[in-house]
């Protein structure tokens, strides 16, 4: 790219008569061309998003009020709120809602707390910081499906978890049949979910920590603030935005629980681990009831919107 050619490439000098309308006319097609090429560049992404996000979202909303099936010779008919009436009287759906609430209530504080602890531990510069960061992040690059399969093996009655528990407790803790007992299946899934995802949120906390100015800490140290006071009055307020973000993303991820359940328990034993998305997939895919699955998805979406609205409101109040 050479700018030396500048004069020769310029459009011809102003028209001989020197009228301004002529100049304006010359300018317009060029502007039109910019409009056209601009839209041409936006179009591929815009069309794809329309086709695969907007349309399915609208369709999902519409299909929830019909009797559509995945493969059916009959035309789709409008059935009003039948699907929702069925959904709200389905005990399995309420069980799924209870299960994901249980999952979220434990995972949200524990995972965000552990992730923050990990971030604080590696926020300082010291020898080997990269080593620890890599290890903490390793579970995140391992797919949830692989993680579920691996822990499925470790949770066996004669598996690694029971062996470790008995070794470290000197045989005091008796082994459990983790995934086959309705009382322990969900806690077992909770543990591996936190193990897999904590490193992800550690990175987000870390970005938040690094955005806090070092001068604030220096000032606090000059005032003789203790480590705890520095955390309480400098770090914690400085993480306000990160906090909202971490809480919202963990909550939404928790409500969308699916992979672990699909690989490890298929919702069992006795529906103790079934989830909203698992029920949606079971009805929409296995039983091909697209309409009923769309109704479940819609309820899930409303839930997600509500949660983010509530969390946003709560964190705004604290200003």
């Amino acid at each position, binding site marked *: 790219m050479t700018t030396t050619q500048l004069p020769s490439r310029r459009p011809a000098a102003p028209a001989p008569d020197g009228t301004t309308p002529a100049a304006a006319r010359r300018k317009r097609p060029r502007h039109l061309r910019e409009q056209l090429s601009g839209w041409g560049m936006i179009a*591929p992404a815009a069309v794809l998003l329309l086709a*695969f996000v907007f349309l399915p979202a609208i369709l999902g909303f519409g299909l929830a009020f019909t009797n559509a099936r995945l493969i059916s010779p009959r035309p789709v008919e409008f059935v009003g709120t039948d699907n929702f009436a069925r959904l709200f009287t389905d005990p399995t759906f309420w069980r799924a809602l209870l299960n994901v609430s249980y999952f979220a209530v434990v995972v949200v504080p524990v995972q965000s707390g552990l992730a923050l602890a990990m971030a604080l531990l590696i926020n300082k510069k010291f020898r080997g910081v990269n080593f620890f960061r890599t290890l903490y992040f390793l579970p995140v690059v391992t797919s949830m*499906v692989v993680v579920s399969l691996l822990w499925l093996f470790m949770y066996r009655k004669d598996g*690694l978890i029971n*062996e470790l528990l008995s070794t470290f407790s000197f045989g005091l803790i008796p082994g459990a049949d983790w995934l086959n007992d309705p009382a322990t299946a969900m806690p077992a899934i909770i543990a591996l979910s936190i193990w897999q995802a904590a490193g992800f949120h550690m990175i*987000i906390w870390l970005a938040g920590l690094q955005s806090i100015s070092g001068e604030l800490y220096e000032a606090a140290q000059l005032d003789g603030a203790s480590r705890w006071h520095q955390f309480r009055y400098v770090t914690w307020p400085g993480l306000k935005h990160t906090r909202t973000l971490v809480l919202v993303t963990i909550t939404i991820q928790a409500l969308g629980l699916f992979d672990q359940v699909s690989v490890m328990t298929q919702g069992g034993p006795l529906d103790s681990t079934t989830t909203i998305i698992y029920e949606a997939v079971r009805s929409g895919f296995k039983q091909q009831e697209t309409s009923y699955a769309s109704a479940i998805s819609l309820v899930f979406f409303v839930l997600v919107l509500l949660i983010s609205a509530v969390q946003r409101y709560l964190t705004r109040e604290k200003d």
Partner: protein
Amino acid sequence: MKNVLRLNSIGAMAVRILFAAVAAFPIVFMLVSSLKPDQQIFGDMSSVAAFLPIGNISLDNYTAVFDRVPAARFLINSVGVSAVTVVLGIFVNSLCAFALSRMQVRGKRVVFTAILATLIVPFQTLALPLVWWVNQLPYFELNGFSLEISKGWLDTYQVQIIPFIANAFSIYLYHQYFESIPKELDEAARIDGAGWFKIYRQVVMPLAGPATATVAILTFLPAWNSYLWPLMVVQSEELRPVMIGIQYFFQLNVSWGEVMAYASLITVPVVVLFIAFQRSFINSIASSGVKG
């Protein structure tokens, strides 16, 4: 005072090591077990040998995996689907962000807002209506010289790729990055007679390397890890991606050594990529933090 600080830092290091052990032990166990016969895996379980590649070590489990599962085919499928999704994603999303950020296009603000609005919709809410929808889409097939049109995208490669090319978050990331590149560069190139596409390709994109790395990683990981979607839309064995391959092990009398070998086989490529491009991975995740 100094002793207290010293004690503190020893304590912190102990906690760091504890966390590292917890993070690493299942993965070490997986890799080590993939090299052992089942009998030895269970024999070693109660001692530290469970985490050490000692005893009867071999690659037998890996050869057995390739006999039991069309693992090579699955790996090729996943590499192909992920690579095409990443390449097309980079192109389509950066092109869109370029026009939205640097060109005078009427209505671009509305378009950008609409694109960002899609960020609040989790994929799980779209998945089931989307299955129904892709099954209604026309499918063109060139059969010899005649173009055949059939209905439904289920069980194809494109159903694993096309819905995931355009991504609001990638557009957002590129838009942010493009805003930081001086617009005077475009002016200079235009005066040189460059068209908009040439400016995109030769001026702006070469400067957007970090954004491209982030978009590539954030597109690659979910593409490689996808499970829910291919589970529903791909039935033919020859089209399946790696994560669906684990279903070959859902049976009685499974050989756990083989399961661990398959799990390692589909995890190690990503771990190697992560270690090679560590900084980019960490930066990508940190930038995905602004998503909320």
